[in-house]
C-alpha cells in the first residue's frame, strides 16, 4: 500500500459536496476525497472508464453515496457495486437526506455497510462527515486489493 487510497464521495449537489469537503478539511483528509456528481460518474470511476480512463486503477477506501442523483441514482449504483465481484468488498456508506423507511430497508437489503442521514444542523453535519471520513478513511482497514468475494 504505497499510494493513499481515495475516499469516493458521490454527491450531485455542489454545496453539499463543498460542505462535506469543508468538514473533512478540518481533519485533513479532504485531499483524499474524489467527488463524483452523478451515479454514472461513480461507475465510470469505479470501472476506470470515461473521464477516469487514465486513472491508476484500484478501489477507493470507501464510497459515500447519495441516494438521489441524476442519471443513475444511488440505489442503482449500490446494486451495481454489490453485484460486481471486484467492487463488492468496497465499503459503501449511504449518505442521504432521506429518512424514509423504504430507502433504509432497500439500501441494507442491497448490502450497504452503513446508512447515515445528513443532519440539517451544520455542526452535526460536520461532525458526522468528519467521523465517517475518519472511521472509514483512516481507522477502518479496507479489504486487501484484488480480493475475490468469498460469496
Amino acid at each position, binding site marked *: 500500500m504505497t499510494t493513499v487510497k481515495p475516499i469516493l464521495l458521490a454527491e450531485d*449537489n455542489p*454545496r*453539499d459536496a463543498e*460542505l462535506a469537503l*469543508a468538514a473533512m478539511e478540518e481533519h485533513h483528509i479532504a485531499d483524499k476525497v474524489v467527488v463524483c456528481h452523478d451515479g454514472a460518474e461513480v461507475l465510470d470511476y469505479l470501472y476506470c472508464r470515461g473521464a477516469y480512463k487514465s486513472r491508476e486503477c484500484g478501489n477507493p477506501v470507501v464510497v459515500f453515496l447519495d*441516494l*438521489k442523483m441524476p442519471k443513475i441514482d444511488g440505489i442503482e449504483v449500490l446494486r451495481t457495486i454489490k453485484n460486481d465481484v471486484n467492487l463488492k468488498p468496497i465499503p459503501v456508506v449511504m449518505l*442521504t*437526506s*432521506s*429518512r*424514509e423507511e423504504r430507502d433504509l430497508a432497500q439500501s441494507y437489503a442491497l448490502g450497504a455497510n452503513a446508512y447515515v442521514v*445528513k*443532519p*440539517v*444542523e*451544520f*455542526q452535526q*453535519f*460536520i461532525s458526522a462527515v468528519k467521523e465517517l471520513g475518519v472511521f472509514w478513511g483512516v481507522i477502518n482497514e479496507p479489504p486487501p486489493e484484488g480480493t475475490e468475494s468469498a460469496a
Partner: protein
Amino acid sequence: MAIESATQDPPTTTPSAAPSLSESSPASAQPPPPIQKIGPAWLTAWLAKWSIEQRVLGGFGLVFASIVIISVVSYRNTSVVVKNSRLDSASHELVQLLGSIEEALIAAESGHRRYLVTGDESYLKAHRTIVEQMPEYARYLQALTGPVPEQRERIAQVEQLIKQQLDIEANAIQQRAERGAEAVRQLAMPGVAKRQFDEIHQLIADLENYEQQSARARLLQSTGTTRSTIALLALGAILQLVLLGSVYYFIHHDITNRRRAAAELRRQGELLQAANKELEAFSYSVSHDLRAPLRHIDGYAALLSKTAGPSLNDKAQRYLQTISESAKQMGQLIDDLLVFSRMGRQEMLRSTVNLNQLVKTVIHDLRLDLQGRTISWTIGSLPDVPGDPAMLRQVFMNLISNAVKFTATRPTPRIEIGGTRQFPGEVTIFVRDNGVGFDMQYVNKLFGVFQRLHRNDEFEGTGIGLANVRRIIHRHGGRTWAEGKIDQGATFYLSLPVKRTVS
C-alpha cells in the same frame, strides 16, 4: 401505506320497518338510493328499504302462500266434483232400481189378474217373486236415497203403497183360491188396488224427476267448480311466474347494483392508491429536497461565521446566529411534518400493548430532557390495550414530554398518569400536570396541526405533537380531549376501545 379498514356497509335495511304495502310514501324520508330506476319513486324507495334476502324471502313467501291458497281451493273444488259424481252414480242406481221395481210391480199386477181369471198358478210367479224380493228392494231404496227429506218421504210412501198393493193382491189371490173365479170376477177385470198402483206410478215418476233435477243441478255445479279450478290454477301459475320473475328481477337488479358498487369501490381504491403513491412521492421529495437547502443555509452561515467571525460585529454575529436557528427550526418542522404524515399512512400493527410498561419506558427515555429537574410522578395502574406499540409509544411520548415541558416553570412539578373505565368497551387514560395550563376557549385548537397556544420563546415546539396524538388515537378507533385552566395545569384524555376484554 395503510388504507383505513372502514368496512363498506352493504345498503343497510331497517329490519324494524313493517312489511306493509301501506307504507307507500317514504320517498321523502329515504334519500333516493343511487340505483337504476325500476319503477315509481316510492316503489324504488320502498324496495331499497329491504335487503336482498328480505326481498327474496318475501317473494318466495308470496309464491308459497299463493300455492297454498290455490291448493286448498282446488282441493275443495275437486272434492265437490268427486262428491257430485258419487251422488250422480247413486242417483242413477236409484232411478234404475225404481224402474226395476216398477216393472216387477207391473208384471206382478198383470200376472195376478190373469190368475184371477184363469186360476193358472203359473201366472203368480211374478207376484211371488216381488213379494219375496221386496225387503231387499226396500233396503236398496233406503241405501240409495240421499239425505233429502223430501225424497225419503216419497220412498217411504212408495214402500207403504207397494206393501198395500201387494197385500190387496195377495188377498184377492187367496179369495180366488178358496172361493173360485166367481168370487173375484169383479176384481179381475179392473185389477185390485188400482188407486195404489196409480199413486205408485206417480210417486216413482216424481222420484225420478227429482233425481234428474238434482243431477242437472250437480252437473251445473261441477262444471262451475271445474271451470273455476282451471281458472284459479291458470291464475296461480301466472301469479307465480310473475312473482318468480320479479324475484329474479330484483335479485338480478341487486346483484347488478352490487357489482357496479364493487367496481366503483375498486376504482376508488385504485385512485386512492395512486393518490397515496403520489403523496408518498411528495413526502419523499419533501424529506429529501427540502432538507438540502436548509443544510446549506446553516452550513454556509456556520462557515461564514468561522471564516469572517472575528471581523464581524456583534449585530452581524447575531444575524448569522438567527439564520442558523431558523434553518434548524424549519428542519425540525419538516421532520415533524413527515412523522405526522407517516402516522397517517403507516400500516398499523395489531397487538396488545402493556401501557404500564410503555409509560415506564417513555419516562425513562425522557430523563435526559429533565436536566436534573425533580418531578413528582403519580402513576396509576394502566390497562393492557389492543393497538400498535410504536404508535402508542409516540402518543405517550408526546403527552408526557408536553407535561414535562409545560411544568418547567413550576417550583414543584407534578405529573399524574392514570386510567379509568368509565364506559363499557373502552378505557380512558389521562395525563395530568400542574403546569401552565391553557384557556378552555382554545381547547379546539389544541389538537390541530401546527397549532400552538404558546409563543416559541415561552415553550419551544412545532405544534405537531398533539395532532399526532389525535391522529394515532383516531386510527385506533378512540377519542382525545383535554381540560385545562390557565396556570392551573392541564389534563389530556384519550379513550381506546378494548372490545376483546369486554364481551
